[in-house]
């Protein structure tokens, strides 16, 4: 089964990305984690996301397009990236989620990916 691991991070964690004093440890942590995922042969796909200040939110209401500067939710924990992994069950996905750096500082949501839609009956 495929699961998406949705990583969130706090503002202070995002700030580490470009802080010379902390960037080494920050990126080192993520590299090690991703290497482990790759080693296990379970990566389907994944990406890091640029920080929340780069986000723009779009809504269409009554035919009108509303564009807002910033992420859709004003929360302490913001989307930071994702990986889709192929593992036998949720328990395995949870184990992997717990090992992500984001799990220690913020949180990781684990959600099953929808199975491919069945082709219409002949």
């Amino acid at each position, binding site marked *: *089964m495929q699961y998406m691991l949705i990583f969130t991070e706090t503002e202070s964690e995002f700030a580490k990305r470009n802080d010379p004093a902390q960037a080494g440890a920050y990126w080192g942590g993520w590299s090690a984690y991703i290497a482990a995922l790759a080693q296990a042969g379970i990566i389907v796909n994944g990406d890091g996301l640029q920080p929340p200040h780069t986000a723009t939110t779009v809504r269409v209401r009554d035919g009108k397009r509303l564009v807002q500067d910033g992420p859709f939710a004003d929360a302490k924990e913001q989307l930071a990236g994702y990986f889709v992994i192929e593992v*036998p*069950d*949720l328990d395995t996905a*949870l184990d992997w989620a717990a090992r992500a750096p984001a799990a220690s500082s913020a949180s990781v949501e684990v959600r099953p990916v929808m*199975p491919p839609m069945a082709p219409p*009956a002949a």
Partner: protein
Amino acid sequence: MRDARRAAETAARASYGRLLSILVARSRDIAASEDALSEAFVAALRTWPETGVPDNPDAWLMTAARNTLRNAARHRSVVDASAIELALLHDGFAPEVPDLPDDRLKLLFVCAHPAIDEAIRTPLMLQTVLGLDAVQIGSAFLVAPATMGQRLVRAKAKIRDTGLRFELPSAEDMPERLGDVLNAVYAAYGTSWDTVAGADPGAGDLAGEALFLGRLLVSLLPAEPEARGLLALMLYCESRRAARRDAEGRFVPLARQDARLWSRDMIIEAEGQLTAASRSGVFGRYQCEAAIQSVHAQRPITGRTEHAALATLYGLLAERAPSAGVLVAQAAARLDAGEPGQALGILRRLVAAEVAGYQPYWVTLAMSLAATGDRPAATEAMQTAITLTRDPAVREFLAGALDA
């Protein structure tokens, strides 16, 4: 017709949970399995009067339910319907096979899976293993039936759609996972403790169900001492049920109970389980709590309470499995031993936010303050305790407790 009905009812009473567990283990879909099993019972009542009750009613019901499930999966045209078909076919149990498997243990671990909200674990167990409906379960947990029904639907959908592991936990994970299962069973027992006086005991009380689940766990996990510990604990508590109220319906505290009203059979069963559990020599929270109850059960035999033994046992609990409940109980034991100062010392270590709504904390605090001579503070604490008490008989008792 009467034979068919009786046979069906017997099968339902004795085998519902086990039959459902087999279907769920293969389909992962609790709701669909429940529907399929219901239809099987309907079919039985329809055909057995004509064809006669089968030699193996359980196997007949299993085959009927399995077929319904397979057809339902086909109609849904879900990509993994074929996976379900394969799982159901591979068992190959034919009506002649006498012994159907028992997947209730797997089912119990699924109900208490970490991904399932704690509040819905007990209701799930009660509905799947015991066949209770949302009205019965909701009534015990003081939740409206429609709300309870909704929560159960959501939880079953989560189990179906999320791919939780359906195997027994590894040896490494077992202590924590088993702890979750035991906690959920104990929560079922706990609903009977708060039964409001005057309410129809049959309507809300799940003590019997909790004891059934406790005994089931011991039979399915004979090598797990904590399962025996939980069963012993519940049996000790249940043994005193008749003594908790006097003839006028007034609340009777443990120290004043007429021990002749305690169930000797339950105490003997509890002692047996506790003894068997202790052979493992491993500490367990439930074994320790049962041991504490065992000390109380000795009072009518020896004529006194072994306060030193209680202090040791509570000390162990506070060290290995601390919680607000444990610390308050530890303080209460110190108070009973004639050490109100020590009791207050323990209570003062608790975090205010944790105990603000915890009635036993306020009762113990009030009694300890009174015993150290601070009557005004004791009265104030007791007032808080009373506002947190639902049972009118207990409220009445507390109102006069400081004067006793």
